[in-house]
C-alpha cells in the first residue's frame, strides 16, 4: 500500500511534497522519493492520491 515516483519522468516541481498528507515525500539528492513506510495512499484523508492528482506529468506518481 504505497505509491512511488518514476524519477525519469519527474520534473522536481515539488508540488507532491507539500500536498502529501503523510509527509512521506522528500527530495533525496536529485530526486523526490516516497517513503513506502509512511505512504498511506491518502486512505482516510482524501478521496484521491494527492501526489498523483497534483503531478503535472502523467504516469509519474503510480502505485508501487
Amino acid at each position, binding site marked *: 500500500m504505497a505509491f512511488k515516483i518514476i524519477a525519469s519522468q519527474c*520534473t522536481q516541481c515539488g508540488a507532491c511534497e507539500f500536498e502529501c498528507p503523510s509527509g512521506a515525500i522528500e527530495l533525496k539528492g536529485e530526486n523526490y522519493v516516497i517513503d513506502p513506510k509512511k505512504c498511506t495512499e491518502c486512505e482516510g484523508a482524501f478521496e484521491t492520491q494527492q501526489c498523483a492528482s497534483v503531478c503535472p506529468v502523467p504516469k509519474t506518481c503510480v502505485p508501487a
Partner: protein
Amino acid sequence: MTASMISLDSSASAKTSDNRLTNAKSDSCKSSSCGSTAKPDDMDPATWEKIKDHPCYSEEAHHYFARMHVAVAPACNIQCNYCNRKYDCANESRPGVVSEKLTPEQALRKVISVANEVPQLSVVGIAGPGDACYDWRRTKATFEKVAAEIPDVKLCISTNGLALPDHVDELARMNVDHVTITINMVDPQIGAKIYPWVFYNHRRYTGIEAAEILHKRQMLGLEMLAARGILVKVNSVMIPGVNDEHLIEVNRWVKERGAFLHNVMPLISDPAHGTYYGLTGQRAPRAIELKALQGRLEKGAKLMRHCRQCRADAVGLLGEDRGKEFTLDHIPDAVSYDERNREAYREVVARERGNHAAAKSEAIEMVKAAGPDGSLHVAVATKGGGRINEHFGHAKEFQIYEASPRGIAFVGHRKVEQYCRGGWGDDATLDGVIVALEGIDIVLCAKIGDCPKKRLADAGIRAVDSYTYEYIETAISMVYATEFGVDLLTGTA
C-alpha cells in the same frame, strides 16, 4: 535640438558609483524643462508613483528600469496546453523556462548580486516556473527576505489565479503592488480547450468543471486585488481558432473588474517544446494578426505592447536577458547589498527622464504640426535610456514606432538574430533581419556599415546613423519633418 548628451548607458555601466555620480553631475540641468515630470496627463499621481519604475507596467519606464525573476516557485496547480515544465533550454526566451530553481535563501543571494551589478534593477518578480500563489511558502519567504534587505525594490508576482484569493491579504501586507494574472477565457467552454485539468481543494478537476472553477477564482482574485488598490495586469495568450475572438470579451470583463493593463501575447507553440499545442500542430498567431487584435482592443483596458515574453529567470532590461551572468555558480556564498549603485542611477534617471519627457512632447507636437498626410514606420536600435545608442549589427531587436499626424507612438518590437558578431557580418543573417523589418521605412541606429546599409536600401529600407545618442522621439520627428518637407525651424517655432 539641444538634448543633453549624457548617456544612461555609460552611467549604468560605470564601474564605481563615484564614476556614476560624476557622470550624473556632468548633466547639470541643461534643459529648461528640468524638474518636469514624465507622468502622462491622464493618470492620477498615486498610480503613476506605483508604475513609474516598473518596466512592465510602464512603456516609458522600460527604457530605464530592469526587472529580475527569481525561480523559487516550481510547483503548479493547473495544466495549460501551452506549457510543458519538463522541457528546458538555456537559449530560449519564453515564460516557464528556467535554468535552475532556487531556494528562498539562494534567491536572496541572487537578488543582492544583481542589485549590486545592475543599477537599473527596480523590480523583483516571481513568475514560476510553477505558480507563485500555489507555491506560496517559497514565494512568501523570498519576498520577506528581499524586502528586509532592499526595502525600496518593488515586488511583483505572476499567477494563474486559482490560489490567488487565498493570499490577497498577505500580498497587500507585503506591499506587493503589482500582480499579473494569466486569463485566457471567461467562457468555461473555451477554457476546457486550454486547460486539461486544475488541482483544487485536494482533487483534480477536468473539462468544463475545471475551467469553471478557474474562471470564478480568477474573477474573485482580480476583484479582491482591485478593491485593495493593487495594480493588476492581465496576460492573455492569443490562440488562433481557440480564444482569439473571445479575447475581446475577456478584455471587457477584466476592464470592468478593474484590471490596470491587458497584455495580449502570441501563443508559442514550437513542436520541439513538447507542449500539447506544439504536438497537435496548433499554430501561433502571425505578428499582423496580433497587431490587428490589439487594434480592436484599443478602447478597452489599457494595452501593454512592449512585452518580451521573458523567461521565469530573466534578469535585466526587458530587451535583454543577463540571466546567464547570475547563475548560482557565478554568485559568491556571502554577498552584501551596496545601495550606492542603484541610488546613483536613480538620481541620473530622475533628471534624465524629465528632459526626455519634454523632448518627447516637443517632438510629438512637431510631428502633429507637420501636416495631415504623413505616415512613417521607424525601427530603432537602442539599448535603453530612450536613446538611439545601439549599432545596427549588435541589435537583437528593434523597437517599432509609428509617426503620423496623430503623433509618435510605440507599437511593438521585432526580434532579430544579431547580424554582426566579432566584427563579421553574416549575409544570411542580414537576409533574416531584412525580412523581420518588412514594412519599415527607416531604421535609426547608432552606427551601420556601408554594406548592410546598401542591402537595406535595395530592400526599400533606409538606414540612418546620424542621430546617435539622440532621444528616439526627437530623431523620429526630425526624420519625419525632413521627409514631409517641413522646415525644422518653423516647425519648432
